């Protein structure tokens, strides 16, 4: 009898989509609510194993874009391909199975405040009626990954802001997603806690290589993600040699709903776009 699937351990191979087609592809996507467009003709893609950092100040449509990726919002125009399927007009019922393949970390964690940490992290497993002992083991594995095993029986109200984000990361990772979405995971946190969260994201990226899209307005977080890697032998994040950056981590930048930059860190710092220069200053 084979053992039931569990949270992958560092060093364990992780399954990727076999072909090189993008995991997410936006083509000419536009969306407006009441007023000017929130997103205007946005096109980009996320390749397998790639980490894309979406930069921009508050209110430029970053979180809206993130919600379009897994169909929580619908575009007014354009095409959104997720795992090779067009989701712009897909009925909600058909989106639910697709969403189970994605892990999403919300801006404030969005933990269910009436459930314990265990039940929050295990939410999908409980819906799938996985046996209790297996749930407990997988939740402990996921909490160990974010170094919060001791919070197993606590309620979200008794956790700090940083701990909630880490629990949200554990919830996003428990089913070994094929795509990760981080919506401002360090927003409103102190620098030390922000670094802890970024270290977890780097660890996830370098150990499991899950493609991801990360929204942030903090350039310092983006630079740490690009300039560091997770050293499994030391069990911590370490800086890359001077001048080197993670090749799989690239940048997007939004200004007033328009995508004004798509490229590497090197190209970002060399950009002559006045908005980019002002943002980096």
């Amino acid at each position, binding site marked *: 009898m084979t053992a039931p699937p569990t949270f992958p351990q560092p060093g364990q191979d992780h399954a990727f989509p076999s072909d090189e087609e993008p995991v997410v592809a936006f083509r000419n996507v536009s969306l407006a609510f009441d007023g000017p467009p929130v997103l205007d003709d946005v096109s980009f893609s996320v390749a397998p194993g790639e980490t894309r950092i979406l930069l921009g100040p508050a209110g430029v449509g970053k979180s809206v874009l993130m*919600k379009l990726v*897994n169909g*929580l919002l619908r575009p007014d125009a354009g095409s959104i391909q997720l795992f090779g399927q067009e989701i712009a007009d897909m009925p*909600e*019922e058909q989106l*639910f*199975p697709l*969403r*189970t393949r*994605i892990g*999403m970390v*919300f*801006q*404030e964690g*969005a*933990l*269910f*405040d009436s459930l314990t940490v265990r039940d929050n992290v295990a*939410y*999908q497993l409980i*819906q799938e009626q996985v046996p209790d002992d297996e749930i407990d083991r997988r939740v402990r594995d996921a909490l160990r990954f974010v170094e919060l095993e001791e919070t197993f029986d606590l309620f979200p109200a008794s956790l700090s802001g940083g701990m909630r984000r880490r629990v949200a990361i554990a*919830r996003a990772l428990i089913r070994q997603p094929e795509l990760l979405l981080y919506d401002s995971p360090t927003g409103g946190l102190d620098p030390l806690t922000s670094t802890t969260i970024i270290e977890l994201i780097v660890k996830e990226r370098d150990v499991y290589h899950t493609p991801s899209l990360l929204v942030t307005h903090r350039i310092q977080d983006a630079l740490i993600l690009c300039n560091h890697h997770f050293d499994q032998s030391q069990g911590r994040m370490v800086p890359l040699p001077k001048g080197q950056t993670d090749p799989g981590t690239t940048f997007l930048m939004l200004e007033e709903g328009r995508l004004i930059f798509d490229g590497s860190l090197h190209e970002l710092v060399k950009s002559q776009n006045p908005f980019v220069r002002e943002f980096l200053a």
Partner: protein
Amino acid sequence: MRYPVDESATPLGLLRTANAMAIRMIENYAKNLVLTVQDYSLFSARAFSNLYRPPIYWPEFLMQADIIGVGSLLIVILSGLSTGGVLALQSAATLSSFGATAVTGQFVSLTMIRELGPVLTGVMVSGRNASSMASELGSMVVTEQIDAMRALGVDPMRKLVTPRIAASITMLLFLTIVADACGIAGGGMVTVFMNHQNGTQYLNMAWEHLRYPDIIQGLVKPLFFGYILGSIGCFYGMRTSGGTQGVGRSTISAVVWSSVIIIFVDFLLTQLLLTLFPPL
């Protein structure tokens, strides 16, 4: 020398501007009303169709049945007893002038079972539970918990809305029966202990003049009222926007509209049921 006149600053210009603003406000209000009715119709049709399609979340249904049914029992018992008592007091005072105080039991039981039991229970339970549903779901919306649920592949309509509506329908039926019984008991206590009339006569009159159509009328109404309070409470909760202030607004709208619609639908149902079961 004549200076150019700014027409918008003249009394006539101000009147025109005020008129245009008033028309725009009425137009916006009418559009919002139509949009809300359309959204509610779609929402309630989806929630209703989910009642018959798996997966059905039985644990959530039972939990809501406990919150709505057991949680509202005390207020339903107290309001039922008081209403029956008031009916007995008022009717005895009026009927005594005709020398017909003996029919107090018939008056109280028919009024409670056909009308006041269902409506009063509907309004009381709506005040307690439609508000609670709107504020609970509204808080989940503004803290992105509903989005998180959708992102985790779970349909909040099935998981949160449908069990609440099903529990409201089921429990309002039983709470109405409790309110009817308490109302008749309250009327009986007032008749015996305050009006000093015969209790056996009160109960005989209350029982003998009841017909099946009266009971049917009293049991059909809570099914509709339960659906109204559950669906409106959830509807306003799920469309909450604007942070904690928005939660407050949703709660108020849920209580006001569910109560008003229950009373309006009661009028329509009474007309329909009286047509189907004409009084003898």
